[in-house]
């Protein structure tokens, strides 16, 4: 059976103002996938994420999300896409003046007509899903970085989105917290069927959770490899991908 594509980009060029960072980006993301956007520092991974989430406009090309033209579609259609997407930012991006419960409740209050009691129930459930049961009244400043990320994930999951984007989920976390977050991502993907898109250069996460991936090459300013990260490691299509996936260590051994 043919896989249903939830995101499709064609000849996408991205960047800031007049500067193009990446061009000719064409890739498909199947529904229910865990898709990794990887590449070296400063190659444009986060810029691609910001373009996919509508934070910055694309220079050219097209993005189709859930069958909607995300670049040229009308605002109402785009809003529908936004409602079905959640994002976990690098820092968690929780609103510091609000408690965790208020943070998670915000999208629910905005887009649903649920009663306050129902919203409180959903909030408690979402926080429990990410391992923060009972933390409703805490402020972001009162919890650790890893907990902030999990609370951010609870907010991203508030509206039961079809797509969740993760921007460098492992950044600033110790190895155990990072692994726990990876496990949580796998659980969410498995139990809720959510499509997960992760921007990262953390190799352990890439191999642990990635089903499909693209590698952004800073030199050629485009995608230089596509596929399952473990497959790419076994059969690297080029030197850059091999160096990246082996941290350049195998290369050093070879030169020795």
């Amino acid at each position, binding site marked *: 059976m043919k896989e249903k594509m939830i995101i499709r980009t064609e000849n996408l060029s991205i960047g800031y103002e007049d500067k193009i960072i990446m061009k000719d980006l064409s890739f498909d993301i199947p529904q229910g996938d865990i898709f990794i956007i990887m590449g070296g520092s400063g190659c444009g991974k986060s810029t691609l994420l*910001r373009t996919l*989430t*509508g*934070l910055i406009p694309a220079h050219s090309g097209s993005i189709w999300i859930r069958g909607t033209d995300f670049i040229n579609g009308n605002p109402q259609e785009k*809003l529908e896409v*936004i*409602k079905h*997407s959640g*994002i976990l*930012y*690098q*820092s968690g*991006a*929780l*609103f*510091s*003046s609000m408690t965790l419960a*208020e943070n998670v409740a*915000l*999208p629910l209050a*905005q*887009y649903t007509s649920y009663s306050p009691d129902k919203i409180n129930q959903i909030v408690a459930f979402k926080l429990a899903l990410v391992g923060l049961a009972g933390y409703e009244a805490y402020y972001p400043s009162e919890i650790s970085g890893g907990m902030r990320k999990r609370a951010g994930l609870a*907010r991203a999951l508030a509206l039961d989105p079809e797509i969740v984007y993760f921007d460098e989920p492992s950044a600033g976390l110790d190895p155990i917290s990072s692994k726990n977050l990876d496990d949580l991502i796998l659980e969410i993907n498995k139990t809720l069927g959510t499509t997960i898109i992760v921007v990262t250069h953390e190799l352990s996460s890439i191999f642990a959770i990635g089903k499909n991936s693209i590698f952004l090459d800073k030199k050629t300013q485009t995608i230089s490899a596509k596929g399952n990260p473990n497959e790419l490691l076994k059969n690297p299509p080029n030197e850059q991908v091999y160096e990246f996936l082996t941290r350049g260590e195998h290369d050093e051994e070879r030169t020795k």
Partner: protein
Amino acid sequence: MVEVKTQGDTIICTLEGVLSGTTPLNIPGVLHNKKIQLLGSNIESWNTDFVVILFDALKHFPKENISYSQLPQGMEQLLRLAFQTPHQEKETPHAKLPFLERVGDIGIRFSHCVKKGCTFIHECLVSWARQLAGKAVYRSKDFWMILADCGPKSILIVSLISFMVGLILAFVGAIQLKTFGAQIYVASLVTIGMTRIMGAIMTGVIMAGRTGASYAATIGTMQVNEELDALQTMGISRTDFLVLPRMNALLLSMPILILLADFMGILGGCFVCVLFWDIPLAEYIKYTTNSFYLNNFLVGVFHGVVFGLIIALCGCYFGVHCGRNADSVGAATTKAVVYSIVWMIVMTGLLTMACQRLGV
């Protein structure tokens, strides 16, 4: 000692003896087509200062044209590390542009700033309209917290400053008026001055420094922490959610603070007149009452409303357009205060002219 010789397309630098940061180097400038060979078999000693000046002299040569394999191991490793990436200087387009193009560039950037400002004001007006239609979304809890911060918590500082301004006006005025034996008119001077404009201006300046700066810093920090991105990707209007409650809070609190400032200024004048110029309290009150015109008071309050709008817009605008680092938050805060005060003074001039034309 460094000896430089040219053989065909190769520059040969022979390094000998003791090499330090003061060793003179006579390597020619940028010659991309030349190869450079460094020979150092007779080096007695060297330090990193010498490597620094050697790198500075060679940094513009393509790394593949430099051969340093015959240098001492440490020096070779340092140079290899330093040359691992090509030398890339930041482009400074303005220095290279001719005068007219620079003027044009400044003009284009200015027009972009004006466009950004107008877009922001338009967004705020649309939000306001949405609010009137009951469609704007912001948390009432946020509004009450902001109102408490810019209203009740500002009372003390507004009272103190206004009292001092009234006091200064009375002192300065009385010194001049005494020469004509007309020091009783100090009461009129203070009353008219405070109610017409001074109360509004002083409150505006205080609120720009206190509240406008706080708006810019809060929203700027939210920008740094990606909170504004989070709002946008949740499909929540940042103007509705952040700007509208701040604008409403200032528009509500400014007239009340101005009323307080007027009263405290008049009280300051009274303090000086009664204690220092022996004017009886009853006389001061009588002249104050006679000089109090509703027109002046309403003009002052109207100024306050306009100032409140300016402070809220400047504070929120610079917060929303803040960069993503700590320096930018500082810059946004400074700009919010400076632009608020400048625009308040400009608007005071325009409103004064308008009032004169209208005979108010």
